[in-house]
């Protein structure tokens, strides 16, 4: 079951004419709206680049527009009081280091009643608290979502369906959302020419999202589970190839088992997260924590952030702290030496393999923290100016920094300023 969004769009004219016939001249309405951010970003080093998750390149000492700028256009065709079609295109700089636009969402929505809504097509993958509007700068306090957390699940949308239930429990508004589908995302491949990328696929992606809003407090609980397959990672391919070769050549099946354990081929992956937001008078607090688990070379991770802000009229200064830690779910089981009677070359081969596995596992561990301070200024009803400084501290190696020179492990200061708008 994978309804292609284009098919849904093709079905549109038919749906419109049917609706007309049924409602006796009900005129469907089309609403266009959009959002965007125009921002410049720069860092205080030329030895590494700062970018958002899944960007191939980022900002160095000279300011660039590609890190934090984007433009989204959304069209909604309301057929009648229960059926509508929404499409959203988003232009930004991503994995292939070129500006590109993709069909971010395209779905049909059926408002069954006041409680239930059903969506089919390309729908949001509800994995984070601000999943569905993380690209809408105007809707967010910070200039960009904390990358430590928002880099942990690569899927923004899934092709499938979702159901949402909204209800009131006393004074609490409850929203429960369940989504299921498949996804495919291009992933940036560091150190390659623009245009090349790896591909990660999610098979039977399932996500549950529970949101409770009570006055100024919002609480969120999310769980997503899927099988992932990663194609086009040359380092991982070489490593599993070498393990399988040695395992077959020396009749050491544990090497083949290790290769299977490392391979990202239909491997279980899950992401559990909690979020809390407080918007009380002039005080804003927002915090999330997430745990990622996989059974492959992709490491497990723990990520969280806390954001606090205070409103002074149209100005809101804010501070945030974000942290990402990771650990390997697969351990290095390459034997230290070959059993007696094996060829002389066997043990050195195992030692080389063991070093390669350890190196590969270690390089997958991405850890860093970021302290940010910033200011949002609502200078107009539809636009806000933001300025933000980040102090990025990679813990091992270069953390989430991009294209770092070998051995780079220094803290980096990033500055970004820009305007968010909606129209």
């Amino acid at each position: 079951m994978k309804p292609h969004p284009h098919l849904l769009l093709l079905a549109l004219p038919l749906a419109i004419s049917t609706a007309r016939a049924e409602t006796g001249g009900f005129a469907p309405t089309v609403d266009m709206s959009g959002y965007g951010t125009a921002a410049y970003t720069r860092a205080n080093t030329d030895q590494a680049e700062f970018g958002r998750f899944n960007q191939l390149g980022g900002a160095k000492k000279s300011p660039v527009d590609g890190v934090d700028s984007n433009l989204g256009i959304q069209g909604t065709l309301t057929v009648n009081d229960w059926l509508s079609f929404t499409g959203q295109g988003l232009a930004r700089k991503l994995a292939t280091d070129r500006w590109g636009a993709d069909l971010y969402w395209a779905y049909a929505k059926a408002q069954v009643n006041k409680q239930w809504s059903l969506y089919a097509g390309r729908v949001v993958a509800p994995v984070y608290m601000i999943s569905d509007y993380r690209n809408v700068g105007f809707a967010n306090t910070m200039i960009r979502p904390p990358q430590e957390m928002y880099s942990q699940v690569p899927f923004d949308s899934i092709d499938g369906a979702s159901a949402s239930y909204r209800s009131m429990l006393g004074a609490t508004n409850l929203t429960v959302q369940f989504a299921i589908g498949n996804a495919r995302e291009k992933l940036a491949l560091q150190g390659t020419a623009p245009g090349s990328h790896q591909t990660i696929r999610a098979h039977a992606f399932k996500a549950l999202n529970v949101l409770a809003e009570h006055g100024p407090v919002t609480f969120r609980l999310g769980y997503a589970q899927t099988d992932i397959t990663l194609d086009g990672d040359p380092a991982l391919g070489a490593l599993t190839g070498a393990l399988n070769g040695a395992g077959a050549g020396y009749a050491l099946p544990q090497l083949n088992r290790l290769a299977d354990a490392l391979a990202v081929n239909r491997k279980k992956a899950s992401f559990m997260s909690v979020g809390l937001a407080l918007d009380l008078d002039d005080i804003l607090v927002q915090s999330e924590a997430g745990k990622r688990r996989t059974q492959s070379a992709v490491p497990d991770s723990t990520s969280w952030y806390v954001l606090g802000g205070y409103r002074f009229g149209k100005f809101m200064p804010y501070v945030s702290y974000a942290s990402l830690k990771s650990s390997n779910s697969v351990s290095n089981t390459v034997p230290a030496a070959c059993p007696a009677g094996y060829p002389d070359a066997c043990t050195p081969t195992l030692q080389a393999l063991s070093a390669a596995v350890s190196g590969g596992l270690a390089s997958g561990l991405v850890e860093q923290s970021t302290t940010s301070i910033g200011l949002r200024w609502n200078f107009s009803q539809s636009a806000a100016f933001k300025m933000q400084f980040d102090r990025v501290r990679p813990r091992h190696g270069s953390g989430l920094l991009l294209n770092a020179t070998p051995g780079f492990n220094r803290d980096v200061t990033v500055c970004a300023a820009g305007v968010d708008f909606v129209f």
Partner: protein
Amino acid sequence: MNKFKTLSVAALLTCSLAARAEEVVIVVNPQNPATRMFTEQAAQFFLGKSSMFTPVDLPESSPIRAQFYRKVTGKDVGEVKAIWSRLVFTGKAAAPKEYRTSAEVKKAVAADPNAIGYIEKSALDGSVKAILTVQ
């Protein structure tokens, strides 16, 4: 000193005059069974947190709109717009429809049993039902 006193008295007077002129009422369709509403409840509809009623708006430039949101939600029009943009760009809800005048708001509320709107108190008539006076 005297001049200063006069000034502050004038300022106070202007404030109270302004407050009286800006008294706003929240209105619903006469068929709506609700008879009264708390400010916190009203805020939920106008911030998109509940889909029980369908809010309608005055234009962004309207001073009544600014007053209304400031008093009911404690937020200015821009902040409210930011909150709605979270719902709009995620397909969860459509932003409230805007009507140019209080007369048009009344017409829209009178035509939709689920609608909820706000108008200045002086514009109130029998076509809609007032359920909360915003102080």
